[in-house]
């Protein structure tokens, strides 16, 4: 998806994100395959050689899709949900809180639907590595298939493992760990052994307060420092054009001033919670002991 760099033309076996008014859909371009819709069929073969960002018309010419180059953000909006997923506002803050840069090695659990995994892989490419774990064997299989399809298999190792009991099978290597687990406090004590010497970061995402409370205690007891807790929400806005009239203030005239203004206002209905982000640092065995 990323490591290969940007391509301008659609080729065989490419992942393409199809976009219409209703949402996004991800496909892998295969000969003979097609996408069905109520208003016609889109043949994969029609897309070959087309520029990314082109408008694809259905065979009946009644509807269209935009054929977009995949990015982790578009993937997040189009991926098949196997679990609750993280969305871009949280993903982007997590990336910064983990201080990810090209070359960082990372542990993640659980893999879930792989929404965050793709964003991590993008950011740590080409020399970093992501070890991602899930206890659900089926999910691991599906995620691995996707990583392969998206050309990320060299960047990502996805394994089936109960990290709460066993910890990660990576030692003295990573500098960032991300947890999205029902019981993060069970895996926190296992984390330090996976960190490489020096400064490392951890972020844990939990929807409920109780999870944060227990994780916070576990972080303190495991020697983490600089423990911080954040909540980040994307406030969705709309621009509404409103007609403003003057009220009639006397009886002499009925002519009232009227003007239109554009106002940025919040949407009425939007996600009001996703989860809390607990972050901390860990310093592994200082070289000098004063």
């Amino acid at each position, binding site marked *: 998806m990323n490591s290969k760099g940007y391509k301008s033309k659609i080729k065989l076996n490419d992942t393409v994100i199809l976009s219409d008014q209703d949402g996004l859909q991800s496909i892998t371009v295969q000969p003979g395959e097609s996408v069905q819709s109520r208003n016609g069929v889109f043949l994969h073969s029609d897309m070959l050689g087309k520029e990314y960002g082109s408008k694809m018309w259905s065979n009946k010419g009644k509807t269209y899709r935009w054929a977009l180059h995949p990015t982790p953000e578009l993937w997040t909006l189009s991926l098949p949900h196997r679990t609750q997923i993280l969305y871009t506002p949280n993903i982007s803050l997590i990336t910064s809180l983990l201080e990810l840069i090209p070359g960082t090695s990372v542990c993640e659990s659980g893999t879930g639907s792989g929404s965050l995994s793709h964003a991590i892989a993008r950011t740590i490419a080409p020399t970093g590595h992501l070890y991602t774990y899930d206890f659900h064997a089926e999910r691991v299989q599906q995620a691995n298939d996707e990583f392969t399809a998206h050309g990320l298999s060299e960047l990502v190792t996805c394994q089936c493992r109960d990290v709460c009991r066993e910890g990660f099978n990576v030692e003295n290597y990573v500098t960032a760990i991300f947890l999205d687990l029902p019981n993060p406090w069970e895996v926190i004590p296992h984390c330090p052994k996976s960190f490489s010497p020096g400064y490392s970061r951890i972020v844990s995402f939990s929807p409920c307060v109780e999870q944060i409370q227990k994780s*916070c205690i576990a972080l303190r007891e495991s020697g983490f420092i600089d423990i911080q807790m954040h909540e980040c929400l994307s406030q969705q806005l709309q621009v509404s054009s409103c007609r403003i009239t003057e009220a009639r203030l006397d009886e002499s005239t009925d002519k009232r001033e009227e003007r239109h203004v554009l106002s940025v206002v919040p949407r009425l209905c939007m996600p009001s919670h996703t989860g809390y982000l607990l972050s901390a640092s860990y310093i592994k065995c200082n070289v000098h002991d004063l």
Partner: protein
Amino acid sequence: MSLKNNGIISEGDTALAYSADQKRYHTFQVKICTSVRLWKHTVNTEGAIGHYYGSRFVIRGCSLELFDPNKLEVRLEQQLPSEDNDNRNLLDVASNQKYSTEDIQELKENELAGEQLITEIISGSNTFNEKSQFSKQKYLTRKRAKHLPVIFIYRPSLRHLSLMHYHLRPEKIGFLRIDTLSLLLSLANVRYGSRLLVVDNFGGLVIGAVLERMGGGGRLVELFTTEIIHPRPVLSSFSHLSSLHWECLSAFPLRRLARLREYPQTPQLSNSEQKTNNTAQQPISSLQQSADSLEESSIIEIDVNITQNKSETPLFEEQHDHTPPKEDRYCTARELLIEGEFEGIILASKHDPVPILEACLPFISSSSPLLVYCVFPELISNCNEYFHSSNNIILKNLTTSWLRAYQPAESKLHPEMMSSSCRTGYVLSGVRVKTYTVTPTQSIVTPEADAGEERSPDSKRAKLL
């Protein structure tokens, strides 16, 4: 990509001191013999050398000592909540502490070492033992913060720098809070190998952040809106970036984009540009000058550092060190722009974004993310209208980000009571697609497909390439 010195604090490094109590950062240079001013303290930072970045240190008198929580002598016994005092009999009077400020200063001068001082102060409090467990802890924390402050020493990074600059002068960085900045980077798909256009009127924070995420691979063409590129303290504070990182950066004046589109192959110099180049001859003095005009001492410090060690931060190295012929000043950027096919734009501007975006669109390849950041709702609503009236921008989304910090104290969890980072700007995002092409079946022609055709960037790009 590996860390310099394996992440160990070394002589000559530019580092960040962070006080968790005050939530404030301070940039300083690690040196053996010289003292630096960290807030109210004059400290010799030699004690930090050889330890890992991210470690905590106690400021004990004039020196730094690695902080060891196990060495705290004063500890509170855990009590059951039911046995707890509830402060109901406490009156708030000054006579509660038998030591005066002067007494405590004297105790300090008698070299009463760290925790002993705290023990002494507690024994001087008449009310300490009557306080509730919570109040005792609060008292202890307050006294320690005052007399034995603990600081973190960090290597600069996007996380720390964005927190630092937001705290120092949020208006200078256009209220680009860490969450908002991070969102721009994600949505613009910034990564190793990116090829991006950036307009940054906010001190270079976006540019620095993009360079960090590119990790020394990729192309960032800055389109600057000023006459010349001014030295920017925020960008200079990205002192951890290597020359590999800086080589990804080139710059081009926005005002010359139009001419570039028309005559891509004839890089003639205008008068104003010659003037620009004259200025570019004295990079150090202008950098210094700009630093002098700043009020924030920590910022001054880092600017001076960079000026003194310019070999380490080769900002526009090709011009400064290799002294290229004048007409080549924007050569790198010009060539990249002529190639076109940028994979996205981050437009973080004080100006009306619409005309800038229109000027940039021809250089951006289809299926690329467009990111506009504005501080004021009026500007973003105009740009939102432009996005919606355009027939080659899809997946339009307008948001602002909301960030809340919590106090995760044991059994007293609550959001921070006061926030000094309530303000950020507006992020408008979209994806550029190929301009509307008419199909045999003309049934679905969107009503807005009028003006859009005329300013179609594709036709212009065809001329360009």
